[in-house]
């Protein structure tokens, strides 16, 4: 398995890709913040926000299919909000008999549930566009500019560099395990040990992975020291943000705050 394909970054030459990473990160977070703050049931505002993120997706040339497929990741979590339909009191939508009890679904509950689901879906899309249109080194620059501690940014950078090495290592461990594990074709023949035995084997693999990582980190440290590393994270000064990008930032912030004001005015 080549896990390099896990990296969601898709190089394109779109205006979204060329936008300064600092501005992209800020706008993504502000978009998600706006989503979170929009009151329940402000459907027209949700549609406008969706139109906004949809146009960004189209401009970014990432492909709608790609973004929408990835955004389905949030679906399992929506289950957590599902009971709201039944517990929020209000105008009854339908009554469902479940054994000895009757379950009452309410209109406000349904409204709240769908609001949460849509907000979450829109936020997810913004995060996907950010990750798919910004390379990791650019994200590190953005984090540095937003005053994330330098040391933490360096750790992120090193982690990213070795992430795929260690994921490959983990997949080699798994491949070795499946290569050693037989499977009987005979009907009813039980293969493999008990669940706790299997978990123990997996635990051994985890310990092995940890040990290899620990030893690797020692070698990496030695290599860094021999190249002159002294614990200081040095980086190039941040480039200036182009005036056009400032305009984009301010316009987008303006649009989002107008949408938010609109939402509070009519549905707050």
């Amino acid at each position, binding site marked *: 398995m080549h896990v390099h394909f896990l990296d969601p970054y898709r190089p394109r030459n779109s205006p979204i890709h060329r936008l300064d990473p600092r501005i992209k990160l800020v706008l993504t977070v502000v978009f998600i913040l706006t989503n979170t703050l929009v009151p329940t049931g402000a459907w027209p505002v949700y549609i406008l926000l969706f139109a906004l993120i949809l146009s960004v997706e189209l401009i970014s040339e990432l492909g709608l299919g790609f973004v929408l497929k990835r955004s389905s990741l949030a679906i399992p979590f929506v289950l957590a909000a599902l009971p709201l339909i039944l517990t929020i009191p209000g105008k009854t939508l339908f009554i469902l008999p479940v054994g000895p009890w009757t379950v009452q679904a309410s209109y406000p509950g349904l409204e709240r549930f769908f609001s949460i689901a849509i907000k979450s879906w829109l936020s997810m899309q913004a995060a996907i566009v950010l990750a798919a249109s910004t390379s990791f080194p650019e994200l590190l620059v953005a984090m540095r500019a937003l005053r994330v501690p330098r040391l933490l940014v360096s750790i992120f950078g090193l982690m990213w560099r070795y992430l795929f090495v260690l994921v490959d290592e983990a997949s080699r461990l798994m491949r070795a395990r499946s290569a050693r594990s037989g499977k009987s074709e005979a009907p009813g023949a039980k293969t*493999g040990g008990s669940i706790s035995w299997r978990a123990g084997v997996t635990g051994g693999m985890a310990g092995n992975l940890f040990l290899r990582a620990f030893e690797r980190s020692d070698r990496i440290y030695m290599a860094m020291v021999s190249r002159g590393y002294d614990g200081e994270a040095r980086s190039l000064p941040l480039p200036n943000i182009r005036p056009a990008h400032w305009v984009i930032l301010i316009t987008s912030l303006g649009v989002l705050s107008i949408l938010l004001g609109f939402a509070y005015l009519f549905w707050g």
Partner: protein
Amino acid sequence: MLPAPLAMHIPDGFLSIQVSIFLWLITILVVGYALKRVGADLGERQVPIMGVLAAAIFAGQMLNFAVAGGTSGHLIGAALATILLGPWAATLVLTCVITIQALIFQDGGLLVLGANIFNMAIVAVTVAYMVFRTVNRLVGRRSWSIIVGGFLAAWVSVEVAALGTALELAFSGTSPANIAIPAMGGIHALIGIGEGLITVGALAFLSASRRDLLKSSQAAPIRGRLVWAAGLVLVLLLAVASPLASRHPDGLMWVASRYGFLNNQQNPLFKLIPHYLFPGVQNKTLATILAAIIGTVIVFGVAFGVAYLRRHKTNPGDDQQV
């Protein structure tokens, strides 16, 4: 990517802004302190060691084993990291893992990242540390203390982090407390068993191959007492909050009153306290909470007592280890 831990990675839109910001503040403080602590401990080795180990935990979450009916158990790693690296380094490593998962793989939201780090890198680590240290103090340095301590630390860390997640959802009004808490607690009681078994497997492997790694991590608790106390407070808090929320006849009413309190800052705090405290022990919820607190205090009292007695029995050389 991974179905089971996903249940704990809250996406954006599921937490209210107040809860998100509050947990961001705590997270920033704790992670900032952890950076300093680990820096003082590891010096210039901090970046390579923390970076590679964070990558290892990320990769380790891929390791899985078949349970039944197509489901699989896999490692989350908070307890393993805590036992091997100590609480501060583990917090740092898991913070990196969770941040990268959110930023790159959309496993968990960006605005709620603070809450996700709080649950999985702060609460889980703190509780795992407290449990592991307590078991070690109780049974001393027997060969199986690592196994028992590791299993319990892993199980409790998963369970408490899940209860924390459920409580945050309830506070935000996105999931009724009387459903979210039992559901999350129930599912993660099972997931925690898998986590415990894998953690034990990993510890057994390491104690067979590199015993020195396990010993060195146990011998050097960095401000261990502080973390231990914080773990106790967290467990106590959950013992109070979980039954309060889940036993309430209408979880939503409770959430709504809290939500209103957070939203409008109207000070119903003063109304809440007499409401919950003054009716006395006839109040069923209060009785549960009191029982939970008293139970916790008794358990830890006994634990401390035994640990104290052991201190006097063992030779002075052992004292430095405990």
